[in-house]
């Protein structure tokens, strides 16, 4: 396969993967904010169904990863680009903690927020724009903060 054809094939795969992901989120109930909040509401009338979303997704993907590990590379690219770090650090846990607060406030995480854009609900649009702003600002400020800390 020529590099150009390979790149095109990768684009088709990405598009298809995105479509399946969006459909999966909607089927699973992840695009209903109050259902997500019901799942996070452990103390009053907990709705456990979203546990089955993660369960179903992990069952399929863990099996796929097991099968893929026997292969030297993905079908359409040179190597698997997966994170290999295994140590825990403050950044990881702090970031996850902040994300969780936002998730619990709005009932949206990034995927369902973007998949809800076609509804044109102001809530979905504001959520996605704010998420982009937060992510962008953090990426821009992060090197500055790191450098300042190093100098002090």
């Amino acid at each position, binding site marked *: 396969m020529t590099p150009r054809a390979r790149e095109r094939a990768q684009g088709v795969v990405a598009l298809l*993967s995105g479509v*399946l992901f969006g459909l999966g*989120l909607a089927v699973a109930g992840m695009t209903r904010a109050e259902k997500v909040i019901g799942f996070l509401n452990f*103390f009053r009338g907990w709705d456990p169904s979203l546990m089955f979303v993660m369960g179903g997704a992990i069952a399929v993907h863990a099996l796929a*990863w097991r099968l893929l590990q026997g292969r030297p590379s993905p079908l*359409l690219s040179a190597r698997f680009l997966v994170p290999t770090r295994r140590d825990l650090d403050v950044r990881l846990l702090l970031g996850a903690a902040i994300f969780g607060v936002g998730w*619990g*406030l709005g009932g949206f995480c990034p995927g369902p927020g973007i998949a809800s854009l076609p509804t044109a609900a102001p809530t979905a649009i504001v959520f996605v724009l704010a998420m982009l702003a937060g992510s962008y600002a953090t990426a821009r400020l992060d090197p500055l903060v790191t450098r300042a800390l190093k100098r002090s």
Partner: protein
Amino acid sequence: MDIPLDWIRALQGGALIGLSASLLLGLNGRVMGISGIVGGLLAPSAGDVAWRALFIAGLVGGGLVALALMPGAFSAGSASLGLVLLAGLLVGVGTRIGNGCTSGHGVCGISRFSPRSVAATLTFIGTGALTVLLTGGGAR
């Protein structure tokens, strides 16, 4: 025993999510983490933009198809716009600092038995639950 329909739908939707993550990893070698895919578009580097843009286009397209087939699958919750703005900012900041969200850590990372992703997932479910508890189960 009757299994609630919601649980069956959750499993089916989850399987679709697992399938889409497996396609992206098995064919393209990429992790299907939404905050990471979007993050790469906000700081674009050459040769690394098209697949991300196409994935996000597909995600919006998948949402559009779902909206046509099952409009009841979407609802925006009861939070006010101001609160949603804050929620979005926190999600953007947190996923960038913590390198991932529900899909990247919660599905892809746990599937590879990554201790970092297990810890991150327990953390964001924990602070999410705490937030819902403190706001009385559905903030306005």
